[in-house]
């Protein structure tokens, strides 16, 4: 029963959900701001990984069509292109952009952490809240 269940569940979905939950736990459960930021990264990457996996096909190859010269045209089947033989490149290209966006978010987050640390001298949420209260 459990074996057949495991086989029917697509692995890409299982992996992305597990990674996403790890990231979510770190973002909400951890008190340290650096850990929150790491969690945020894991969260973003899990989704990027999932979308990249959407382009994958079993038994397919990279989406580069080798240029066929007229001499190689001995049979029709060789020149015909079948989409099923190639993985879908579009999700990969989209995720390239998403990675850049993720990089920008992470760098803004790190810059804010630098400012927080230089102003309050800590990145632990509890200590930070105490210091904000005393500074007011």
């Amino acid at each position, binding site marked *: 029963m459990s074996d057949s269940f495991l086989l029917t569940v697509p692995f890409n979905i299982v992996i992305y959900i597990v990674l996403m939950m790890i990231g979510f736990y770190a973002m909400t459960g951890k008190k340290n701001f650096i850990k929150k930021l790491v969690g945020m990264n894991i969260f973003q990457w899990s*989704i990027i990984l999932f979308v990249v996996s959407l382009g994958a096909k079993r038994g397919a190859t990279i989406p580069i069509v080798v240029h066929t010269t007229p001499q190689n045209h001995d049979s029709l089947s060789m020149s015909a292109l079948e989409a099923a033989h190639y993985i879908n490149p579009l999700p990969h290209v989209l995720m390239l952009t*998403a990675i850049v*966006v993720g990089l920008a*978010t992470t760098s803004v*987050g790190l810059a804010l952490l630098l400012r*927080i640390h230089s102003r309050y001298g800590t990145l632990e949420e509890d200590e*930070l809240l105490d210091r*904000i209260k005393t*500074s007011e």
Partner: protein
Amino acid sequence: MSVHQHAAPALIIACPLITSFVLPLLGRWDRRVVLPVTLTALIASSIGSVTAAHIVLTQGPMDYFWGGWEPPWGIAFRIDHLAALMLLLLCVIALAIAIFSHRSILKERPDSYVLFYTVYLLLISGLLGIVTTADLFNLYVFLEIASIASYALVSLGSGPAVVSAFRYVILGTIGAAFYLLSVGYFYSVTGSLNMEDLAHLLPELYSSNAVRVGFAFFVVGMAIKMALFPMHSWLPGAYTDAPSAVSALISATTTKVAAYILLRVSFFVFEPQFFVHFFPVATLLTWMGAIAMVLGSILAISQSDLKRMLAYSSVAQIGYIVLGLGLANEMGLTGSLLHLVNHALTKGGLFLVVGAIIYRTGLREIQQLRNLARRMPWTAAAFTLAAGSIIGIPPFGGFFSKLYLILGAINSGQWGLIGAVLLSSLLALFYFSNVIRYLYLSPKSSENDSHEELLDEKVHLLRHDNVPLSMLVPMIILITGTIFLGLFNGSIVSSFIEPIVPESILQ
């Protein structure tokens, strides 16, 4: 009938985006050119928006295909009636707040003056892009441009602003990541990212689980971005700690644009029957909206800081927008859109008023504002008018949007929602009248006389109306906007909103 390859949609985005890249260099050369250059870019965008709106109203929606690639292959921009309305709204707000920011930022953050305007333009171009794009993934990119710019702007504030900004980064990223995930799900079943193409492909797939899961992630992601009640925790901190000009800008634009995305995708990529029958989140949304309206207002009453009070009031106003959307009928949609536009103008205006008060006196506790109207009559009058619009007194815009929402609730027979709208308005009357009472009358408080002396000292230093013209004019523009919206709501509804109401919900 639609207009192709007119350059206006591209120029609306390109002007502020390209200017924001050049601005740091110009600012290093001479700081005085920063404001004129920013305003030029924004005026160019506004001219583009007005042109686009004129074309849309006379000839129908405009399409622009980047690089000449037609959808579904290329990225397309599309301006329809709704997008034209949002463009006009964003341009008015962006111009008004850019003028206001000059003095305000010079006082609050003189060291970041040049970078403030750079990021300001980035935020505006991101928002304009969200409104015009017809491609779901392109929308994600613009959403993140706008969000990252608003994180940076919030962090410019005083006190614990950096911490609030970091919380905003974490939650905002969860929202955007959920949106990206939903786009992934939609793409996996349809193989398309173009909104119009998806609208053709999706109806056959309404019973597919991937579409339902994608839609659920989409709604949650946008709920975080627009700070719908249980997911609003980033909003009060961000609005309270940000510089005055930034509070006005993000309260007037970012959450409203997130609400616009929710509206756009649920009504124009999906059909209302999907989220009413196939995947019934509509009822859930109306009740979440109702809860947000009431609890947001109750939380607003208990605040002593004026900016924080306005922030919680925003949480309540988002509730109205979501409620109208969830009703999924013509009146509800109209009310929701009208409230979106109206609240953007009103709350922007209110935060500008608070910004002017902080600029002149440095005070923001409600109890310290005693008798301020005597010294700042224009500012206090602006506050009172805007408060009237939020409460929903005719002839302000707020009255008419609430009226449409109530009509929508009557049409769908949900009497409880009418009660929620009225209760929330009553609570709004309560918290605003409290502030107005302090502004105009002077209730004696025995607890602390030093505050009174402090205020009297500060207030006596001021003469006449005291607020610089560059701050007063934007305030007045936004608040006259709400009155204008109230007086001409009929023609706005008939020219911008009625043409886009989906046929399936027409009555």
